[in-house]
């Protein structure tokens, strides 16, 4: 009797589950809703929700003539590597998502990518620019360019437009992203301006707020430009302290500057500085402008890079699902089919530019943008640099 009851209960639960599973597609988001970079998580979630609303509002995602509703699962990785790994496991094994978007920053994306790849699940990091994230991991993709591309772009721009002959670098040695980028910048800058043209290469560790000891050394070396590949919570303190110590030259940054929070914290100190990034909100056209307008109307906030890249990363996953033709409902098979569809994606027209994968790596071919922070504190398009 008891067995029969259990069997009935299982059947009762299983039938709707199968029916439910048949016409929804689950995508997981491994993002920092709390911790060091909550704005990153908030922007990612907002962009994803907007995309979900748009597609579900139109009846769902059309895959081979059948409409599927989208179900997005958001898991907080607290901006910690170990939590990102747990979040990835939860999404892949617990929620059984078809694909995972995020983690966004490289420090979290690199360990989480290992989990996704081992479990043969497609992961797309929207914002991680460190080469290690996708290296030898066929299931891992990204929607942005790499540090080894961003480094040379920054070095080229510093030596060209900023006319720098010498450079100083200040970076967080305990974090994968700034470290990788600082090393790439140094290599390219010294290729252009000769050995030892990076006159100061100073490090600190995460959560530091007093950079004066390092900045004193950098200023003593008299660089023409200061390269700071740091996050928006550190940049305001670094620039303020550099100015207080008497540094007058330009400060050049990387895409990690491109957060809406930067200007709230930095104020006038950041105006007039440049950074390399993925897209610029001020001066956008076409689909990019449509996205910015819709986002601004909905959330009363200008979408930053992470929002735009999350939109593109998620959009790419959905385009690849459509490319698969049909879903088999065998999760392992679908995940592998999705991986094959992703890796052969050509000219996906995203709002941060056209992206293609060459079938070998998970790194898209796309262009970088140099942004100037104008006097109104907006991130204005300055020039585009393509590989």
């Amino acid at each position, binding site marked *: 009797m008891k067995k029969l009851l259990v069997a009935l209960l299982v059947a009762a639960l299983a039938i709707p589950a199968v029916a439910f599973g048949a016409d929804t597609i689950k995508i997981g988001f491994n993002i920092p809703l*709390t911790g060091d970079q909550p704005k990153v998580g908030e922007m990612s979630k907002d962009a994803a929700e907007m995309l979900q609303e748009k597609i579900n509002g139109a009846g769902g995602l059309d895959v081979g003539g059948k409409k599927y509703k989208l179900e997005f699962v958001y898991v907080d990785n607290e901006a910690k590597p170990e939590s990102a790994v747990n979040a990835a496991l939860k999404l892949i094994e617990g929620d059984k998502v078809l694909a995972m978007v995020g983690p966004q920053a490289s420090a979290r994306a690199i360990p989480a990518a290992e989990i996704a790849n081992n479990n043969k699940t497609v992961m797309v990091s929207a914002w991680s620019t460190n080469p290690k994230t996708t290296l030898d991991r066929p299931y891992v993709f990204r929607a942005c360019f790499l540090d080894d591309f961003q480094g040379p772009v920054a070095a080229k721009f510093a030596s060209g437009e900023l006319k720098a002959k010498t450079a100083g670098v200040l970076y967080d040695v305990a974090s994968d992203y700034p470290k990788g980028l600082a090393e790439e910048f140094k290599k390219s800058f010294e290729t252009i301006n000769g050995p030892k043209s990076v006159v100061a290469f100073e490090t600190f560790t995460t959560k530091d707020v007093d950079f004066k*000891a390092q900045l004193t*050394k950098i200023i003593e070396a008299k660089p023409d430009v200061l390269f700071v590949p740091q996050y928006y919570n550190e940049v305001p303190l670094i620039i303020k302290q550099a100015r207080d*110590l008497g540094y007058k030259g330009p400060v050049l940054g990387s895409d990690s500057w491109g957060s809406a929070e930067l200007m709230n*914290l930095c*104020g006038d100190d950041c105006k007039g500085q440049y950074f390399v990034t993925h897209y610029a909100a001020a001066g956008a056209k076409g689909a990019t402008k449509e996205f910015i307008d819709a986002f601004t109307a909905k959330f009363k906030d200008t979408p930053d890079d992470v929002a735009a890249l999350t939109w593109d990363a998620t959009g790419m996953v959905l385009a690849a699902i459509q490319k698969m033709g049909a879903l088999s409902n065998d999760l392992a098979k679908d995940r592998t089919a999705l991986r094959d569809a992703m890796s052969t994606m050509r000219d996906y027209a995203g709002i941060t530019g056209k992206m293609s994968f060459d079938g070998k790596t998970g790194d898209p071919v796309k262009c970088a943008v140099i942004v100037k922070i104008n006097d109104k504190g907006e991130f204005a398009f300055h020039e585009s640099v393509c590989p």
Partner: protein
Amino acid sequence: MGAEGLAFRAPFAFVTFLVLNQLAPGQDMLHTLMQQALNALQQGSIYALIALGYCLVYGVLLLINFAHGDIFMVGAYVAFFIASMAMGKYGLLPAGIPKWAVLAATVPLTMLLTSGVGVLIERVAYRPLRLKGANRLYVVITALMMGIILEYGNLSILGANRLSFPSLMPRMIFEPFGARITITELSAIVTCFAVFALLQWIVTKTKLGMAMQAVSYDKFAVPLMGIPLDAVIVFTFFLGSSLAGLAGLLYALNFPVLDPFMGAMVGWKAFVAAVVGGIGDIRGAFVGGFLMAFLEVAVVAASDYVPFIKPEMRDLVSFSALLIILTIKPTGIFGKPKTTKI
């Protein structure tokens, strides 16, 4: 007394160094050295101010108040809200109050409100345990929990976004002998020295201070002598927390990005500084704070000249050095040997 003399002699040695430096101008390296010394002095003043608060509470109650670093964080946030309000941000006061007036109001109000938080914590978390005669260990664990409650309470109320502290002082920079120091840094240093002198006076010369010493000496005999034990303890928390509030304000003026966990690491460092100086002794906390900062800056500054030393080894090297000091003198620089200690 000898070590105290040293603490007061150091600034004179520093001035001598400046004069010598002036005699040989144009030497970049000396300017850099001078700048690094100023950097350390400024960082040390923050450590010392927090360490003084640790030290006061420990000295009187033999309680390591692990929540102290987070009371410092609360101080910075309290200062933020008072300053924002006074600048007309929430519509309670008209905008356009001059900045010096805002600052003049923010300093005492921050100290008062933060000390209120400290006294409240003592009232709801520590006193019930003390009255039940709980072992000191449980009170220390309670302090640890209070710190975490403050951090995550702040996180859940205000969210994890950083706050930008308004600049209350003009951006004035002094250039003594080629090095540069901002007015906010200078005020942190001056305040720290003044507070140290004031505390020394309170503890050694006033009746309340002597009562504090008496409580520290024998908590059970003190009430028999007609000294109100609870009042002395409340006063200690009041004093210690108002110092944390002041440190929070000075810190926020210099590093104007606030987050709920800003007190954790600074608090730890200040605590270590207080222990190395000899916890329970005001001079110890003061000297320990500066020692910590000078060690940190020295590691970064030396990294170019000493092989294998890198700036990221700052905490490793400075804490190792402090460990050596403790190994040689386990009671800290000014500490007196006692049989029981945590």
